[in-house]
């Protein structure tokens, strides 16, 4: 590393300072994050030794400091062009890059499937929300069907139905429709609790919960020195899932009283957007860890132990300032424990791109959510 690198000795206190996780396929920068710093982007690289602090370098210097895979060079440019420093913006660039096939056909297939799913969910969420609105405002007298969101004619009919109930909230039919549409767009990553299939962030929380159970169970049966790290990963996952569940409840609560939500839309839309953005920050970076563990579950014990070490180093512990009270103390304590337990990752920090490690990262990408 050259002079572009400086070292920060404090743990990032907020999500924005921690940065958004970037699913690179170059092993040496696995678990790295991008964050905005004034008008520039920066890369935050977890300390390979597992010790406190991160390496921070200017975004533009990244290809000069590390020997990157072609996928990562393209992704680096895409993020730079988009000025992407939030999980959602990073995700959009990541999907586009993976869809080229530069991280292998499996990762491309998964990226395309996820992009399609995102489109499919748009309609489902819109339908769910319209249907709930009409049911609540008409006291169950009127109904919306899926056909009402599938064509222009259907949408016109839906607007007419909405117009019949809009007076209950003192809004014009068209305006009510526009608010519902905007709300549906916001709900894209989380959907509504009533959907039979959950969109990605709700699903991600579920996977983190399963991860917590699975790795927690492992840490109880594993007899090696790595077992406590499994327990720690489980604890962080459980905390993250619990915190996310609370925020999901906040976002979902607006669906209970649609009349109030749409009436005070100027205020509520910001609150809903904030809650969803917070969820996406909370769950950011877990994709890789869950995929790493799901892959390790069927491996031999010594391989599982190695994976636990790897994932503990990049464990997305919630930044302290994002929580309060006892939870903040608990998180601080988790950070201290991790530093004591994590060992340096010698395999991951060689200057050249190791084919085996790169292939593994691409496999995890093919399991992305």
């Amino acid at each position: 590393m050259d002079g572009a690198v400086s070292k920060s000795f404090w743990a990032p206190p907020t999500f924005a300072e921690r940065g958004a996780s970037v699913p690179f396929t170059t092993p040496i920068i696995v678990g790295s994050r991008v964050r905005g710093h004034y008008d520039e982007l920066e890369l935050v690289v977890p300390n390979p030794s597992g010790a406190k602090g991160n390496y921070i370098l200017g975004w533009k210097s990244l290809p000069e400091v590390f020997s990157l895979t072609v996928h990562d060079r393209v992704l680096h440019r895409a993020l730079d062009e988009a000025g992407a420093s939030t999980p959602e913006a990073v995700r959009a660039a990541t999907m586009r890059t993976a869809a080229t096939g530069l991280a292998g056909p499996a990762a491309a297939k998964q990226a395309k499937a996820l992009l399609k799913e995102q489109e499919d969910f748009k309609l489902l969420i819109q339908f769910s929300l319209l249907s709930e609105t009409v049911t609540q405002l008409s006291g169950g007298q009127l109904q919306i069907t899926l056909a009402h969101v599938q064509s222009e004619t259907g949408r016109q009919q839906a607007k007419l139905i909405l117009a019949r109930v809009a007076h209950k909230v003192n809004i014009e039919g068209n305006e009510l429709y526009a608010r519902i549409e905007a709300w549906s767009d916001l709900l894209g990553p989380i959907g509504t609790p009533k959907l039979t299939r959950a969109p990605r962030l709700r699903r991600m929380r579920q996977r983190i919960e399963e991860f917590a159970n699975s790795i927690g169970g492992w840490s109880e049966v594993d007899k090696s020195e790595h077992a406590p790290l499994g327990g720690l990963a489980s604890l962080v996952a459980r905390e993250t899932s619990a915190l996310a569940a609370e925020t999901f409840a906040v976002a979902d609560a607006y669906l209970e009283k649609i009349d109030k939500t749409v009436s005070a839309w100027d205020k509520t839309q910001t609150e809903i957007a904030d809650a969803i953005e917070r969820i996406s920050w909370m769950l950011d970076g877990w994709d890789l860890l869950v995929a790493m563990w799901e892959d390790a579950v069927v491996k031999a014990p010594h391989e599982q132990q190695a994976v636990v070490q790897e994932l503990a180093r990049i464990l997305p512990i919630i930044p302290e300032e994002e929580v309060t009270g006892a939870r903040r103390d608990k998180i601080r304590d988790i950070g201290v424990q991790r530093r004591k337990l994590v060992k340096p990752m010698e395999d991951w920090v060689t200057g050249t791109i190791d084919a085996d490690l790169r292939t593994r990262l691409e496999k995890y990408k093919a399991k992305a959510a």
Partner: protein
Amino acid sequence: MTDVTKALGDLSQRLSQIPESTLIEIVWALEGKRAGNHTDQTALGLLGQFRPRLQLVRPGRRMSAKRLFAMPFEDMLTNAPKTQSKIIGKISRNVIDPAWDLMVDKLGRTEVEQIETAIRAMPKGNNSWLELGARLWPQCAKEMRDIVTRAEKNVAYRADITPKLGGPEMYLDFQDITDVMEIAVEIQTMREGLPPKPIVALADEDIETIGKTVMAVDARMRQRAPVVVYALVARLDQPTEILSIFVRVAEKGMAGSTGELASITTEVMVTDMEQRFEEVRRSIASGANDGKVTVREDLAKEIEHHLKGIAQGREQLKGQSGAAASRRLERVKIKLKDVVNSNIIENASKDVSAVLADIGRLAAKAAGEGDIGEMQLVEDRLVALQLAAKYAGDLGLDKELKDEIKRVESQIDGHTGRLFGDIRSRGLTVDNRQDAEAELYSSVRMLELVVGADKAEKTLVEGLNLIDENTREQ
């Protein structure tokens, strides 16, 4: 697809939703169903589906008297065919059933039933079977030794017993089991004290466990000391570690008879390396990859692992006494060289050439459209080539590998050259721009896998600029 496999369907997908306690109950019930019926397809299929979580939750699989019988030698089991010549330190899985059937006859159904009852009475989550084993194993040892002694003296009896066990090689394995049974309590004590198979590293307390076993076997039945070596080598990730383990045991003053076992230890270690190679060879020959798309990649990694073991073994065998064994390890290495050459290096360029010839169809698959299996196999080829580069020099395949890589590189260069020429001369429309991009990305990806990112990126940038410059608005 059988009805059973069909019915199992996507069960594995839903497994993660079953609570752990329920999963353990289900496994318990299935194992019960399977007991006494080795080929119950439904139970076997379901247990197969459960395997990923089984390894994680690790419920105590249902014990049976037969499983208890085989427990002390289970690390030594091999899948080699019945006709394979006797392998030192290994026991064929095929001999378990006939050997156990003989034991049931000799011990009597009542005793076996009583042991089964005692097993059922053990609390769930029980981690040690030593107590019950100490009841079963010595009885088996006595009965088996009687059989072996009689068979050695009486040709007619041996002729009678051998086919029952599955053939002459299985009879030799039966003799090995007899040896294990005679010190089964000591071996099982060692197994329970050591990390699970495959052992990658041993802590000081593990060395002590091994030392204690050596001393205990020496004290009770010194002539069975080789069994300790067999049991230990079979449990190691790298069999060649055994020599340094015995040095550590000796440093603790617990070497016992292991000092006299140098030649047998070397023999077992080398045989184990050869057998691991045979397993590789068998799996390649069977061609059964269960739809796996990382066959060559896995092979390349496995060979790297074996080579590390061989290097380690040869290092430890330096000196006159180890010369013969060292030569055998060298022969394994020569066989590995052939495997690498014929399965990883040769024909890689031919396969890439076939892909390039059909890139119009395959580029979309490389970008994740439709069935991507064909492209994954090409990737597997190229990743294996890259992995083999780590040790091609050690195998004396440096030139072969470099030449093959050069051929692949010039094929891809030739292809992108033609693509760029086409773009320049004919131009692109908005409609066919996407196809040109897909073709470019898939070529770049292949190029990166064989020669690295720097050259691949250069090709990508050149290609994308050309595409931009030569795309016409319609």
